[in-house]
């Protein structure tokens, strides 16, 4: 466990080095946020509430979704794939901890770094410029924090899994990118899933994607109440555990025929 946090710490510190990059990223995310707010405000028109989400909640959603881009590494994560192709995975495998834990600790540090550098400042900027809603009770705050942590875990577990495709295909980039794009659509990143037709929400719920952003947003906005919150968090735990287990099996199968070319 100590090793885990030591590695996280390193990865966290590395994030802090790129402060200007974070600031620039923040500006870009903020601009996209402005566009998405304009779109939602125009869509709502004179309506106060749509699908259980009030306008101010929808605005808060755009902030939350932009704030989680960095934390959940929403746009890309090819690190493991790259290490397979460069052969650096051989030294990863020699480390005194499992490959999964090694990358997990690495990603944890990265996520915390992004939370501090991009997530919180983004929400602060939103609060100042557009006004956001906040959870109504301490319990809701706690549920939100738990759900955000689990969202990161689910997100990491599927990113790890799809990166393992590199052990089989010579150019996994296209496949991984494909899954990432699918995730924007099905995780409720582009729009809260509640706006979508019921049949499509049911389809999404067969995938792990809604258990990342959508669950976090619905808990934060208070769309889910009482037992629904517990149910949503249980869903996150189940998906997290399943994906981690599948990842382990796939990793074992892949490592067996991994050939590292010396150089």
């Amino acid at each position, binding site marked *: 466990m100590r090793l885990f946090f030591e590695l996280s710490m390193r990865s966290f510190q590395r994030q802090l080095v790129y402060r200007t*990059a974070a600031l*620039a*990223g923040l*500006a*870009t995310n903020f*601009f*996209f946020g*402005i*566009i998405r707010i*304009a*779109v939602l*405000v*125009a*869509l*709502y*028109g004179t309506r106060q509430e*749509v*699908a259980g989400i009030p306008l101010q909640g929808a605005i808060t959603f755009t902030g939350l979704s932009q704030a989680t881009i960095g934390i959940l590494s929403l746009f890309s994560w090819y690190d493991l794939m790259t290490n397979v192709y460069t052969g650096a995975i051989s030294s990863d495998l020699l480390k005194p901890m499992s490959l999964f834990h090694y990358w997990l600790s690495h990603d944890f540090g990265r996520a915390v770094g992004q939370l501090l550098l991009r997530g919180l400042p983004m929400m602060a900027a939103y609060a100042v410029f557009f006004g956001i809603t906040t959870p109504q009770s301490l319990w809701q705050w706690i549920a939100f924090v738990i759900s955000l942590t689990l969202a990161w875990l689910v997100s990491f577990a599927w990113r790890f899994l799809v990166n393992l495709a590199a052990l089989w*295909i*010579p*150019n996994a*980039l*296209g*496949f991984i*990118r*494909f899954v990432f*794009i*699918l995730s*924007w*659509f099905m995780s409720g990143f*582009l*729009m809260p899933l509640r*706006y*979508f*037709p019921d049949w*499509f929400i049911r389809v999404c719920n067969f995938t792990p994607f809604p258990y990342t952003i959508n669950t976090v947003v619905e808990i934060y906005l208070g769309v889910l109440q009482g037992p629904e919150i517990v149910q949503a968090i249980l869903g996150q735990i189940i998906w997290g555990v399943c994906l981690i287990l599948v990842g382990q099996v796939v990793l074992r199968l892949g490592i067996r025929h991994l050939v590292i070319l010396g150089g």
Partner: protein
Amino acid sequence: MRHSLDLYWRLIGVQIRSQLQYRLAFFLDVVGTSLSTILTFATLAFVFQRFGNIAGWTLGEVAFLYGMVEAAFGVMDMLFSGFDPQNFGKQVRLGRMDQLLLRPVDITLQIFGSEFIMRRLGRILQGLLVLGIAIGMVEIHWTATKLIFMPVILVSLVCFFGGLFIIGATITFWTYESIEVVNIFTYGGSEMMSYPMNIYQNWLRQFFTYIIPAIFLVYYPALFLLGKPDPFKMPIFAPFLAPFVGLGVLLVAWLFWNYGLRHYQSTGT
């Protein structure tokens, strides 16, 4: 000129051949990148089912804007990849610019030919598909002028986005790394232009009218093609400014690029 074209074909020919080396991976890549356009359109369609319209624009009308922007951005991204600020900044930082400058061939041509990404084909095709669907959904009273004007708009858009890429690339001569803020104008601009401009707050719209005249590239032409009234009461010729704005931005970018080239200083790596 013929020599330049010949050279350009050779430069990109090599890349096309290498990118087609792994057929399956290439196919997946094309499908993968293009999926983003189709899924964004699907999101739009779902959301419109719930909301009906956006500031008086129907799904078909918004898809018309979106399809045009996507197809044009895809074409630009394929032709101007060499200038992609992210990519180009890295070349400058690593000192690869120096190598190119040593060669007895026009530097601009070399950058043009340095990167040609075939998988953008996916985005272009899907953009055109969305545009096709949109044209099927809206009622356009086609006239000869409108028919001729369609490709003119697309080409103007390609020039406009290409100009932004070149400006972004030129800035890296001084910053030595791509500044992500440039993304606000390229990717942010294309995102913004995919929606009717009347949904934005005044300051934002005015910025994209007078500073970066994006509004004349899709929004005004679309008003004309779709026969929609102009809420901002611009002069009657506003829809036809697209080619002038497109070429103008490209020209300004080209001048800036040449200025940058004269002031280029290597990183020494």
